C-alpha cells in the first residue's frame, strides 16, 4: 500500500464538478506530478488531501489508514499556490509559530527553524519582517515553513514561481533529499520541463477527471509517434521507402516516422542497403509539454459553468 491512496473522490460545487471521480495511488518516497490546465480541479483535489475540504464522495487513505484530517495534518506539509505570510511578524517568530500550529513543541520548533535557517543561510533574517524580504526570499522562507515539521507527505503547488535559477536549484536539491529520506512529494505545476526533470510518476487532470496516469517514461512511450532522428555520413540524393516517411530535417540529418508494421531495424537496413553510413539513430519521444497540449487541446480552454445535479 502506498503513502496516499485516493479512490473515487468527488467534490461538486454549485456550478462545477470540481473533482469528478478521481482515483490514484502514490508510492512512499516518490515524487508525484499532479498536472492539469488552470481550473482542472487540482487545487480542490489538493484541498481534500490536506483536509481543508471534505470530499462529497470517495475515500482517502493516508499511510495505509483512513485519512483523519485532524490528526494527519501533522504529517502533511502544504505550500499552496496562493501563499503568503504575516507581513508584520518577525521571520523567526513566524516560522516557529507555523511549526507550532503543525503540532511541534516550542523548543523543538525553535531547534528545527534554526537548523533550516542555517541550511539555507538565513540566520541573519530571524528578527527581520516579511515586508523587508524580496519575493524570492519570501518563497524560500515559505518552503522552509512547509517542510519544517518533517512531514511524510509534502504538497508543493508551483514551488519555483518567483525563484531565480540558483535558489530553484537549492530547493530542487532539498526536494530530492527529502524524497530520499522517505518523504512523499506531490508536485503541482504547469512547467512541464520541471516535471520531466523531477517527477517519477504523473497524473494529468482535466475538467475534474483524470485523463493520464503513469510513470514519466511510460506516459512518453504511450504517446510516442515512432519518430526517429537519423544522422547520416553523407547526404542521400533521394530517400523514399514504404517503411518510413521523412518528416523533416536537412541534408544528412533526418526526422523519420516509421509506418505501422515496421521496426526501427528496418530503417537501419534500408540505409545499409543504400550504402549510406548511419552515424546516429535516436528515438524521439514526445516531451511532456507536447503530450500535455495534445491531451488538453480540443477541450475548451476554460471550463464552462455547468449545472450540477447530484
Amino acid at each position: 500500500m502506498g503513502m496516499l491512496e485516493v479512490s473515487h473522490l468527488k467534490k461538486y460545487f454549485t456550478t462545477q464538478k470540481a473533482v469528478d471521480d478521481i482515483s490514484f495511488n502514490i508510492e512512499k518516497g516518490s515524487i508525484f506530478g499532479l498536472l492539469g490546465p488552470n481550473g482542472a480541479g487540482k487545487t480542490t483535489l489538493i484541498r481534500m488531501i490536506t483536509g481543508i475540504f471534505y470530499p462529497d464522495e470517495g475515500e482517502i487513505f493516508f499511510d495505509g489508514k483512513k485519512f483523519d484530517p485532524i490528526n494527519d495534518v501533522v504529517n502533511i506539509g502544504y505550500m499552496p499556490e496562493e501563499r503568503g505570510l504575516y507581513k508584520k511578524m518577525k521571520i523567526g517568530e513566524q516560522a516557529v509559530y507555523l511549526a507550532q500550529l503543525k503540532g511541534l513543541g516550542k523548543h523543538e520548533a525553535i531547534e528545527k527553524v534554526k537548523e533550516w535557517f542555517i541550511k539555507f543561510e538565513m540566520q541573519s533574517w530571524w528578527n527581520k519582517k516579511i515586508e523587508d524580504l524580496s519575493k524570492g526570499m519570501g518563497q524560500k522562507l515559505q518552503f522552509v515553513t512547509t517542510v519544517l515539521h518533517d512531514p511524510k507527505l509534502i504538497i508543493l503547488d508551483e514551488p519555483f514561481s518567483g525563484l531565480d535559477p540558483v535558489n530553484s536549484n537549492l530547493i530542487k536539491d532539498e526536494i530530492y533529499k527529502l524524497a530520499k529520506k522517505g518523504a512523499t512529494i506531490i508536485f503541482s505545476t504547469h512547467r512541464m520541463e520541471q516535471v520531466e526533470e523531477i517527477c517519477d510518476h504523473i497524473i494529468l487532470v482535466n475538467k475534474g477527471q483524470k485523463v493520464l496516469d503513469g510513470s514519466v517514461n511510460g506516459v512518453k512511450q504511450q504517446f510516442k509517434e515512432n519518430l526517429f532522428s537519423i544522422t547520416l555520413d553523407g547526404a542521400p540524393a533521394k530517400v523514399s521507402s514504404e517503411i518510413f516517411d521523412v518528416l523533416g530535417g536537412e541534408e544528412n540529418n533526418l526526422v523519420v516516422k516509421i509506418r505501422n508494421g515496421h521496426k526501427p531495424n528496418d530503417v537501419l537496413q534500408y540505409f545499409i542497403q543504400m550504402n549510406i553510413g548511419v552515424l546516429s539513430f535516436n528515438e524521439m519521444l514526445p516531451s511532456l509539454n507536447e503530450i500535455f497540449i495534445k491531451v488538453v487541446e480540443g477541450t475548451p480552454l476554460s471550463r464552462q459553468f455547468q449545472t450540477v445535479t447530484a
Partner: protein
Amino acid sequence: MNKIWLIFKREYLTRVRNRTFILSTFLFPLVIVLFIAGTVFLGIKGKTNHRIAVIDANNYFKEYLKSDSSLAFVYGADIDTSNYEQKGCTAVLIVPELKEGHKAIIRLKYKKQLGVNDGSELESRVNNAITDHMIFQKTNITRNKLDSIRSESDLADVRSFEDNGKEAKASSQGLAYGIGYASGLLIYILTFVYGAAVMRGVMEEKTNRIAEVIVSSVKPFQLMFGKITGIGAVGLTQFLMWIILIIILVTGAQAFISHETLSEMQKIQEANNMGNPSAARVSEGAQRIFEIKSTLATANWGLIVFCFLFYFLGGYLFYSSLFASVGSVVNEDPQEAQSLMLPITMPIIFSFIIMSMAVQDPSGPLAVWGSMIPFSSPIVMMARIPYGVPTTVPWWQLALSMALLVAGFLFTTWMAGKIYRTGILMYGKKPSWKTMWKWAMK
C-alpha cells in the same frame, strides 16, 4: 484546543506589544477627560451675557423683574425698538398694558437669537415678575416679608431611596443616568473598534494569502475563534488598565484632601445620621466633596462593573464573528467591506438610539424589549442596570437577557463560522448575499 490557544496568543501578543495599543490605552481616557473639560470650559467661558431693554410704559415690571449678570434688564425712556442695539442690548421687550382676565402679548424683538436656555429663562422671569406683582397688589405682604419667607422655606432636601423590599438604599437618578449613558456609549464604541479590528485581521490574512497555509494546519473555525478571543482579550486588557488608571487617579486625588476637610466631612456624616443635615457648619469645599462621595456611594459598583464586562464581552462576541465573516468574503477592495458592513453596523447604531431613550425611561417597554433582544441588549441593558437591580431591572430580566445574549453569540458564531470557512479560501468575485446565505445554511 491547543491550536486555538496558539492563535489566541499570537493575536493577543502582537496587538498588546504594538505601540499603538499602549498609546491608545493611555490617550483614550486623556482625550475623554480633555473633551469633557473642554466642553465645560467653553460652556462657562463661551456664555454670553445678555442685556435686554424693557419698554414698559406702565412700569409694571420695574420693581419685579429679576436682573443678574447673565440676563440683565435695562429700563430707559430713551431706548426704543430702533436704537436698542446702539445702547448695547441684545433684544427689546415690549410690554403692553396688562389687565386681569385679558391675555396680552409681550413681544421680544431681536436681531440675533438668544438661544434656547436664555430664552426660556427670560420667559420664566417674566412670568415670576407678573406673579410677584399680583401678590403685592392683592395681599398686604411686603416685599421683605416675601423674600424672607422664600429663604426660610428651604427646609427640606428631597432624597431618593431605592426600595427593594427589604431595605431602602440611597440612590441618585442623576448618577444612574450618567453611568448608564457612559457605559452604553463605551460598549457602543468598543464594539465598533474591536469588531473592525477583527475584520481587518481576517482581511489581512486573506490578502496576505496566509489563510490557506494556516487552514491546512488548523480548522477555519479554530482560526476564527482564536482571533476573536485574542482580540477580545486585548479589549479586556485595555479596560482593566483603564480601571487601574482611574483607581490611581482617584486615590491620588484623595491624597490632596486635607485633614481638616476630612474631619469636616466626618461632621457632615454625623449630622446626617442625626437627621439634621444643616447642623454641621462646614466649609463649602468639604460639603462638595462629601456630596460627590455620598452620591458615588449610591451606585452598586461591583454589579455594574461585572455587568459591563459581561455585556461588553457578549456584545463583542455577538458582533465580532459577523465582522469576521464580512472580512472573509471581501478581497482587497475596502469599499466592498463598507457595503457588506452596513447590515452589521445598522443594528449597532440603532441600539445606540434605543439606549439614549432607555436611559431616560429605564422601565418603559422600549427599554425592556431593547435590553432583551441580543442585537441591542449589550448596549441597552447597560443603560438600565445603574438604575438598580432588582428594582428597575428585575433579576429574571437580567438573567433572561444574559441567557439570550449567550445563545445569540453562539448562534452568530456558528453561522459566521460557516461563511468564514468558505469565504476565506475564495478569491476573485465578491459573493452575493444569496450565495453567502447558502454557505451559512449548508
